[in-house]
């Protein structure tokens, strides 16, 4: 297990509420993959919710300060890995506001008793993994030709304030492709999953999810792969179609590809069972 290995580089880690609770399989597989590529994830001590969609939806100031509390907890000299694309945007927007506003920096310093760290680097999982494309350790046919629909949802669409940041379009296809998985080409990879509307307006979200799922089926995919726990949940709970493809967390397929320690419990948490497909493709016994 990753905790035992002394050769790993420590980086700060913000799991966020979804990975800490409803998507533990995402959290655990992500930690295994990170250990495999040389990082130990050290949870940010006493991290709080980033504010989620709800805080910025109705109270911008509260959203900013909730995000800042997390930034203030990050020890200096280490990057901060944020697993969830939404949390990542919230924390980055707060950091962007701090960089742009002296008043915001002053408010931060007074509230949290230290200056905002100008060098804190917030990284997404994609940024950690991108250099692992061809490091010689992987097996070219580790994923046995599994056909997947890469699903990014809204994670590639940054707010205009963050438009100069790097965009990781195509990374899941490239990474999983080097392990012998086949990405299908389809029209819905960047279509929003409906996110929190799933609770109050499932009547709006279900047709959105059905369109996405049907698009993946029509394009010949065997499964979908997502890097967002919210998208994963909506794809599993709001699909009304008779045929429903299983959806993997990107980190789960990477863990299989790297032959990192897999726990059967990960797949048992899926509402659409991915194990029959994994068995057909000879990826689990």
């Amino acid at each position, binding site marked *: 297990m990753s905790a035992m290995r002394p050769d790993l580089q420590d980086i700060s880690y913000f799991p966020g509420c979804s990975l800490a609770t409803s998507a533990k399989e995402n959290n655990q597989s992500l930690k295994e993959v990170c250990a495999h590529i040389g990082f130990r994830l050290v949870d940010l001590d006493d991290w709080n*919710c980033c504010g989620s969609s709800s805080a910025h939806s109705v109270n911008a100031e509260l959203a900013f300060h909730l995000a800042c509390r997390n930034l203030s907890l990050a020890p200096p000299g280490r990057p901060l890995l944020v697993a969830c694309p939404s949390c990542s945007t919230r924390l980055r927007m707060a950091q962007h506001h701090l960089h742009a506003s002296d008043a915001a920096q002053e408010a931060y310093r007074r509230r949290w008793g230290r200056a905002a760290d100008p060098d804190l680097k917030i990284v997404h999982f994609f940024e950690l993994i991108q250099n692992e494309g061809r490091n010689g350790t992987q097996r070219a046919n580790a994923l046995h030709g599994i056909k997947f629909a890469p699903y990014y949802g809204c994670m590639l669409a*940054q707010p205009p304030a963050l438009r100069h940041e790097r965009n990781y379009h195509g990374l899941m296809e490239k990474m999983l492709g080097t392990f012998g998985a086949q990405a299908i080409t389809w029209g819905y990879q960047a279509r929003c999953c409906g996110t929190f509307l799933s609770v109050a307006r499932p009547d709006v979200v279900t047709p959105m999810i059905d369109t996405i799922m049907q698009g993946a089926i029509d394009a010949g995919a065997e499964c979908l792969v997502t890097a967002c726990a919210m998208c994963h949940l909506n794809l599993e709970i709001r699909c009304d179609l008779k045929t429903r493809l299983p959806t993997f967390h990107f980190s789960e397929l990477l863990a299989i590809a790297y032959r990192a320690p897999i726990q059967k419990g990960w797949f048992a948490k899926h509402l659409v069972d991915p194990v029959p497909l994994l068995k057909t493709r000879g990826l689990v016994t």
Partner: protein
Amino acid sequence: MTTTHKRFCQAVVERCGENFQRCLHCLSCASGCPVIGAMTYRPNGVIRLVQYGLAQEVLESPDIWICVGCNTCAIACPMAIDIPALMDTLREIAVENQANINETGILNFHKEVLDSIQRYGRTHKLEIMLRYKVRQRDLFSDMDLGLKMMAKRKLDLLPSRIADTQSVANLFKEFNR
């Protein structure tokens, strides 16, 4: 246009910090919006209402609540207008002015999420769902889904909470309107 109308538009521009007066009404935002079917005016229509100063129409529209802030419109916009940021501002103004909010279910959901963060520093999904259902007087829809998620241990019975709840409670005391 009356002065009141102009004043509303200026107030929104100032508060949001986003100059949506640049909008060309080219409908690029509309063509990508995934939730447009549930809107009345569409994203550029919301901008138009603000430009005309039609406060009541825009603050009581479902559009500002249906928008999930996926940023699809913002990256499609040739004028780089942050439309989700405008929607955030309009929701705040609607709540502050006690407008006759069209999508009370969505607002109630946001309230339950924020209450959960206030209590625990994190979101406790099971409790959010239960309290939301009680608030909506809609106990039975999604019950089978909830049970399935419990069986899969996707909904924890107990909240994950932070140690320093006081610092988060202070934020709510100061900024929760």
